[in-house]
């Protein structure tokens, strides 16, 4: 039995063919073709033929092959998140959207203003995730926002996952919209419930985003629908964590041209004298940094990380100017690859900045409070210091053989507000050298165990040694 996996990216359509042997997969062939964004089916079948050398339809009809595929949906499924209190339901909405493979393009708390509505109308998201209020909780804000949205020209899919008590009111006010109502993402302050909203985001992706551009033709031949690429990677991270005790807790960076995605699985055990505040965070968490990337987001990355760039280039104004110049250049020419040592250095620096900032935003923090019973720690978010394994994937990280990630993760102990950053300090770093993780993630849809084991087996450390052979 063989299994074929295809990932339709915004630039490249990649595919890999595996044979299934026992509990593992063996790579038979892989390849890539440029994505035809006007006709995705054309590049898809071109890529598949290159790899199979046979007709995919007849192989499928003889059940000699299984096929799974994903689509990055125009470089990311854009979700606008709407919540009530920023650190409560808005945060829940963001975590939910990220777990469904989306990136956040807008976010709003409390009441929507006319200005917000205009912003949504001018740059509409693919999906609006509408939350706010626990079940039986606050109603006025949600109804006011539903009224504003109902009167707007906004034409995206809307998923309502807020206070159950106003479901009827919301469906009445949004009766002319493409509305889906699901269970509250936060029915109670202590019990997050991202599942139903996550599923609804995925369905909306299939219903609206997949239409046109030739994807329906692919669905006809293959007989199943694609999933968003980051959604499948999220699931694979889950399978890897379940596959072995050694990999129960780990961190994964998927850094591309446009975004830096961070995934962690972590139990978040509180150390003594530590009190957790804020929302309960999930065991598996994904965050997406839309401003940190290697090409499309190089300029925004340079801006966001300016504080660290300034300290790296202190007393070197010319080099600093050259670095920013390089960021603008690769932003204008995303296909650019470094041609000399300086450019290689600049790419490495950019990657380091992205990793450093993305990991810091992902991790929890704690601060010490002096109390009458001695010092106590107040923690928000998750404590990742116990994580001992980190994986790097995505074009640049997959190829970077000598990237010193230790220098960048937790590049400082304390943030500007004086809070301790809860990132791992002692860890082993592995590279997904062949860039198989997004492709194995597809296989995981059908063979989760196989995909998890093969993902781990294909990792290499910085000396090029395979995982388990050190």
């Amino acid at each position, binding site marked *: 039995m063989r299994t074929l996996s295809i990932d339709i990216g915004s630039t490249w359509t990649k595919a890999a063919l595996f044979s299934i042997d026992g509990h593992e997969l063996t790579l038979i062939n892989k390849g890539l073709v440029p994505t035809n964004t006007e006709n995705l089916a054309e590049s898809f079948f071109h890529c598949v033929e290159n790899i199979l050398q046979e007709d995919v339809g007849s192989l499928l009809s003889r059940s000699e092959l299984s096929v799974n595929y994903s689509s990055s949906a125009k470089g990311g499924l854009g979700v606008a998140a709407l919540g*009530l209190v920023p650190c409560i339901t808005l945060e829940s909405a963001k975590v939910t959207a990220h777990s469904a493979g989306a990136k956040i393009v807008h976010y709003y708390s409390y009441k929507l203003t006319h200005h917000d509505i205009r912003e949504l109308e001018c740059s509409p998201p693919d999906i609006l995730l509408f939350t706010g209020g626990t079940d039986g909780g606050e109603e006025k804000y949600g109804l006011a926002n539903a009224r504003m949205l109902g009167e707007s020209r906004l034409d995206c899919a809307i998923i309502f996952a807020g206070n159950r008590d106003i479901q009827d009111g919301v469906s009445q006010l949004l009766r002319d919209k493409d509305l889906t109502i699901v269970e509250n993402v936060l029915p109670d302050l202590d019990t997050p419930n991202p599942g139903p909203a996550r599923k609804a985001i995925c369905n909306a992706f299939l219903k609206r985003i997949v239409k046109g551009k030739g994807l329906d033709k692919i669905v006809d031949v293959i007989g199943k629908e694609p999933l968003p690429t980051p959604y499948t990677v999220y699931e694979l991270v889950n399978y890897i964590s379940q596959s072995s005790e050694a990999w129960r807790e780990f961190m994964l960076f998927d850094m591309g041209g446009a975004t830096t995605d961070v995934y962690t699985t972590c139990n978040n055990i509180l150390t003594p004298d530590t009190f957790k505040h804020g929302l309960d965070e999930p065991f598996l968490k994904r965050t997406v940094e839309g401003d940190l990337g290697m090409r499309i987001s190089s300029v925004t990355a340079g801006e966001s990380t300016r504080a660290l760039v300034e300290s790296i280039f202190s007393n070197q104004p010319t080099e600093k100017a050259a670095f920013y110049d390089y960021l603008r250049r690769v932003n204008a020419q995303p296909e650019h690859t470094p041609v000399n040592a300086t450019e290689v250095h600049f790419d490495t620096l950019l990657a380091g900045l992205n990793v450093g900032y993305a990991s810091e935003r992902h991790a929890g923090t704690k601060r010490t409070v002096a*109390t009458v019973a001695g010092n106590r720690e*107040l923690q928000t978010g998750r404590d990742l210091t116990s994580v001992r394994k980190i994986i790097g994937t995505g074009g640049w990280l997959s190829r970077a053989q000598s990237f010193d990630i230790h220098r960048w993760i937790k590049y400082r102990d304390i943030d500007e507000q004086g809070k301790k950053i809860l990132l791992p300090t002692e860890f082993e770093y592995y590279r997904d050298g062949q860039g198989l993780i997004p492709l194995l993630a597809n296989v995981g849809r059908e063979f989760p165990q196989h995909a998890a084991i093969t993902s781990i087996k294909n990792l290499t450390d910085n000396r090029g040694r395979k995982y388990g052979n050190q």
Partner: protein
Amino acid sequence: MKKPRLVIGVIGADCHSVGNKIMERVFTEFGFYVTNLGVMVSQDEYIDAAIETGADAIIVSSIYGHGDTDCLGMRDRCIERGVGDILLYIGGNLVVGKYDFKEVEPKFKAMGFDFVMPPHQELEPLCDQIVRDVKTHNDKLALEVD
């Protein structure tokens, strides 16, 4: 009538958790919908939780004696955050030193608390009182709207 919804917790840098757990239990068993924020809670955390859960009352505990500094401006903060009408209760060892409760109570009333409790407060009568207070309060708000 809808179950009264309460937000409870221990304010400031106070980590006395036993009374807090007892309160959660008694209130829940009595039939309130309780959101317990635990210990070392800041003013904004109470208010955030009260907004999301549509709470009728916030019940602040303070055992370590610094309640008067921790609670400064709490009513004003509620007003700023859009829940100025919410019922505010406070109880515990509210100040450092041995003071007559008659001196302590006006201090907290002046800060905008609706009800101030001495160190020894029976919880069952308190539950009855909360039911009464919430009802009166909601009736009054309904009248104002009309």
